[in-house]
């Protein structure tokens, strides 16, 4: 063991940095380990905003926020966790503002809030359409202010488990090469999502589910892994995110006939229905031949140049660069793409997992706040509120406990496995396996799901896992060997795909992001108002169930 800390955080996006700040302020010795520099984290790509019932644009309160979130989750969200989020959100947003976050403003100088999908009030606080970028910057500023140690460009690979406790992380130093064991009394996973499982995704190359698989392999359960959100407006063809803020500002979705087709799917909320509803509507339009080159159109033209330039300049920049479309003059081609994993590492409302000393916060975790469908603007809020809570809890635990043990075998096992991979001189390059995984997940486990296709996907993944056993890393060097880390990332993704298929097949109903119109078109509260849980038995996933925590909202028919 080369170093040890009270709290070691894996990942430096909004959740990781917020956790680090909180743990530091609680008096703990804190370090962050991240495979990319903190400001490169994918939280920075969040555009539209962060939900808190500040009441700056209407008469709002946390109770309304909680109800919208429960309904949006298709009643799969745990209501105690949702209540915590909505109650603490306003204070947490004020704190970000007081630290210097550059929020957009109302006429009277308060934080501006805009309408977002499936929200009863204009609740989404925003900084134009670069809210995530602004939050990443302010959190990094606070990290620098506190001089918190960051192991920059260290690739976390495995958790150290000893005495039924998580006691550190084994990682690869990307810049210089070499495996390092960093001991810690507590570890907080904040590694984000796994959108790279899919061919069309808004997610960064870094979003490969590292923390989910590390937890899974350390014996911790993953929850609701079948729940992958497809965002309705990802740009064709690149897949980058076009913010929901466009629709919040009043943009229309049109099919090839120029029709606002949502009137046939969500006649009241129209473009501001929830994401699962709109993604299915778009996919149906495209499948039934009313799309435009496999897309539908997002029309901003009637908003006018002034409003687009002031509030949606990032969207214009993306459209012009990647689709050669200026939204002031032409509609933007968009389609559903994988965006956010509602599922993740099973935690309680303090971010604590079933393994002592191990926490998870942000997209990697499943508290569960989002259930079967996340509302736009709730993800950034979750990273802050639950990052903060896990940081506080981990620090308190670490400060009342002393020992850290990293058994030598943990390091030597990792070194042996890594050597096997690097010494291999003949085999298959990772990209074909990676691309096949991503295209088949999109085909067989996408917006709409069929029993036969999910079964087929199980076989596909099994075959890919077999091929992965002979994967070839060409770069044998020590310095900035991304060939090695990309191969390890593919290993993370394959394990997760396995888990998702098992959960998807088991959930024989349609709920939120899990839509089975061909065999189980309806929600089935009697049998499936419960979470899927998967653990790993050494060979593959093992399924279990857990009831949803209900407090005051009983399931109702969900329409928008």
């Amino acid at each position: 063991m080369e170093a040890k800390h009270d709290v070691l955080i894996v990942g430096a996006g909004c959740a990781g940095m917020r956790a680090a700040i909180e743990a530091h302020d609680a008096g703990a010795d804190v370090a962050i380990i991240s495979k990319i520099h903190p400001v490169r984290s994918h939280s920075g790509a969040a555009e539209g905003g962060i939900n808190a019932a500040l009441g700056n644009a209407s008469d709002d309160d946390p109770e309304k926020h909680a109800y919208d979130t429960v309904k949006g989750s298709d009643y799969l969200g745990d209501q105690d966790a949702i209540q915590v989020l909505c109650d603490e959100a306003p204070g947490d947003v004020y704190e970000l503002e007081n630290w210097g976050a550059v929020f957009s403003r109302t006429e009277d100088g308060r934080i501006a809030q805009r309408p977002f999908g499936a929200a009863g009030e204009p609740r989404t606080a925003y900084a134009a359409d670069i809210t995530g970028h602004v939050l990443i910057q302010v959190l990094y500023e606070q990290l620098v202010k506190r001089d918190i140690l960051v192991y920059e460009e260290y690739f976390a690979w495995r958790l150290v488990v000893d005495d039924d406790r998580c006691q550190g992380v084994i990682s690869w130093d990307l810049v210089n090469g070499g495996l390092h064991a960093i001991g810690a009394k507590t570890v907080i996973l904040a590694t984000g999502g796994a959108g790279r499982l899919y061919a069309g995704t808004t997610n960064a190359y870094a979003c490969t589910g590292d923390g989910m698989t590390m937890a899974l392999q350390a014996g911790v359960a993953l929850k609701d892994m079948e729940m992958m959100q497809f965002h309705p407006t990802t740009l064709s063809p690149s897949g980058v995110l076009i913010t929901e803020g466009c629709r919040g500002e009043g943009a229309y979705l049109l099919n090839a006939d120029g029709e606002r087709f949502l009137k046939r799917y969500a006649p009241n909320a129209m473009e501001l229905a929830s994401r699962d509803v709109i993604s299915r509507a778009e996919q149906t339009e495209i499948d039934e031949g009313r799309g435009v080159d496999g897309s539908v159109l997002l029309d901003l033209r009637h908003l006018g140049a002034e409003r687009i330039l002031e509030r949606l300049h990032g969207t214009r920049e993306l459209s012009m660069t990647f689709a050669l479309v200026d939204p002031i003059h032409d509609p933007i081609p968009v389609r559903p793409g994988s965006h956010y994993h509602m599922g993740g590492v099973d935690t309680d409302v303090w971010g604590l997992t079933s393994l002592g000393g191990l926490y998870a916060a942000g997209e990697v975790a499943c508290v569960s706040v989002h259930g079967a469908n996340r509302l736009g603007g709730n993800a950034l809020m979750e990273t802050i509120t639950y990052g903060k809570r896990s940081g506080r809890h981990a620090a308190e635990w670490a400060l009342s406990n002393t020992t850290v043990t990293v058994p030598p075998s943990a390091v030597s096992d990792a070194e042996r496995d890594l050597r096997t991979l690097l010494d291999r001189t003949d085999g298959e390059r990772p990209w074909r396996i990676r691309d096949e995984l991503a295209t088949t997940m999109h085909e067989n486990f996408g917006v709409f799901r069929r029993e036969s296709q999910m079964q087929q996907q199980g076989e596909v993944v099994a075959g890919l896992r077999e091929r992965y056993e002979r994967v070839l890393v060409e770069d044998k060097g020590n310095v900035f060997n991304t060939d090695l880390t990309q191969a390890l990332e593919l290993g993370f993704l394959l394990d997760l795909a396995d888990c998702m298929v098992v959960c998807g097949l088991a959930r024989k109903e349609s709920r939120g992001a899990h839509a089975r119109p061909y065999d189980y078109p309806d929600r089935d509260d009697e049998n499936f108002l419960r979470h899927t849980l998967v653990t790993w038995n050494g060979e593959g996933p093992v399924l279990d169930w857990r009831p949803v925590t209900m407090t005051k909202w009983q399931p109702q028919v969900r329409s928008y």
Partner: protein
Amino acid sequence: MEARDDDEMATAGAQLLMAAGNGSSGPTMDVALKIWRFDSETGERELKQYEVEAPEWSCLLDVLDIVKDRVDGTLSYRKSCRMMICGSCGMRMDGAAVLACKERMKPIVDAGHVPVISAMGNLPILKDLVVDMGPFWAKFKAMKPWLQPGFDEPADGKEYRVSQERMNVIHKEALCINCGCCVSECNSMESDPEFLGPQALAKGMRFVGDARDGATVERLEEYNSEHGIWDCTRCYFCNERCPKGVDPRDAIAKLGAESIKHGIDRDMGAKHAKWFVKSAETTGWLRETELVPKTQGIVSSIKEMKFAMGLARKGKVPPPFPPHVADRVEESRKLRELTKTQGRDGALGIVQGERGLARIEHTDRGGARRDVPETDPTEPPVLRDLS
């Protein structure tokens, strides 16, 4: 909600898959590029040419991915978001800094051009296209880049009340993604590696211009010291190469204006700028003969006397007496008066063009426009030890 029951596939399959297939569908093109490879373990450098097939919509980053996947797995570069927000993939194309994810390749291919890709400048190279960002972040941290509100906390425990108009002062600076493209091209940093540089100074302006920050004077004092704002040579390369429209040079100009507004003017650069104003206000012309003593002081000016006399003999400077007053000097004076009455001394006096927005370098629908490189990109990149 219903999908068509007779669909063979649950989703539109191939139509959705263009993004990840690396050429699995849609029209493709043959791309050729040269990459400056560097292995810091052996010290070997080599300009290697690669030719791959790529989808027509590919950006430089997509092409690099294809090279790494299918041709040479040892190629190293940073990447993450591929949507111009994470700032990972700064590198040089034909000798000028770009974000690889933003550079569309089709117009380059159509022009028959074979671009040369190399690591960013002004930073030590670790491997291939990866630079050591250590010196970059050290300067960022030297700016004390966090809000220092002093004792002025919001009374109701909520947010600070700041108008949108007041927030807009730092609109451009807040867009910075720390990619390093400006630093790569900074001419001043090339001659003085300790120069704080465009990125760090733009970050400084982000706080100086923030109504909530209470450390303006302390910050300006620090940014006015050696290697600070007045060492900028105003070449505007940072504005030119910034992929996000931050315009760091404008930020430095704003810091200069704010410094003078706050009476922090001991640096020659500040005195130089002040004399321009004074001169224009009084005679409507720049009085060059007085510029040197006003900027450098009397002692220094006496040393320059011989040189000045030489210039005068050759008719290169107008005689100082009698002062040459412009015909309509009152216009110049009124303009100066206007900036005062409108409160436009300081940062607000720096006129900026378009709103913060990345320059979109494409002409109609034809794709990106590229300028002919001024430097010879086939020269190997300069290796520097800045540690």
